[in-house]
């Protein structure tokens, strides 16, 4: 099984982690002025690159902290 490097605990098995989707999705500065379509884009629409992807991960069975990792979606390899 793949090992994921937790910045606090070190390398741990993949099943200890929880996936949190794309990293760096900024909350709208003024959500009230967004149209329904713009709000839906913020909530649901994410990048789907082939290759390098910045993601949020949570070490849910360990230190329970969130961190950002870069994963290659083709090889599933993590960059440290």
């Amino acid at each position, binding site marked *: *099984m793949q090992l994921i490097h937790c910045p*606090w*605990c*070190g390398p*741990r*098995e993949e*099943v*200890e982690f929880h996936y949190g989707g794309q990293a760096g999705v900024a909350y709208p500065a003024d959500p009230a002025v967004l149209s329904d379509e713009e709000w839906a884009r913020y909530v649901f629409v994410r990048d789907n690159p082939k290759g390098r992807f910045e993601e949020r991960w949570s070490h849910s*069975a*360990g*230190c*329970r*902290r969130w961190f950002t990792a870069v994963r290659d979606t083709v090889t599933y390899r993590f960059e440290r």
Partner: protein
Amino acid sequence: MVSRVSGDVVTDVLRPAGALDGWAGRFAALPDSVTLLAEPFHAMVDVRTADPAALERLVGAPLPGPNAWSGGERVTAIWLGPDEWLLTSPFLSPAELEGAARETGAAALPDARLAVVDVSAQRTTVRLRGAHARDVLETGCAIDLLPRSFGAGSAAVTLLGQSGVVLLGLGPSDYRILVRSSFAAYLAEWLLDAASEWR
């Protein structure tokens, strides 16, 4: 302690019931190379602070860094996260341990940036010892348990047999496992099954 008053049984002192009370018979049937013991009640207190030196006077050592535990006979501190530790003590009551942590922390950090919560009911304690203790753990735990990377003083919050545990290395072939009380029976059953290989 139980005293009899005119035929009625009156309980004077309520003792905390362990999640693995009643398992001693099955644990005793294990071979000497894998010994399981449901340890007596440990008071446990969750501490969150940014200053690892805050509880040095209570623990007897600075709060430990990642994947480690420290402490003396009375109080042990286990690293749970970058600003979170678990204090355990088999000698103090939960209220005493919580009070002591609050007092020590408040004395060291006058502006009191410290959160102390009694979590004694959350976990129960199992001791695993014997020549094959590591072999038993390795059948269901993915972290490297070789003594060079997980020896005395090491700790890990991880999965053992798919249940979340805090694993402490006490010495060669000597481990303490802190498991959620509701998972304790499952984990005990899992450990007994894993140990059957070395019977």
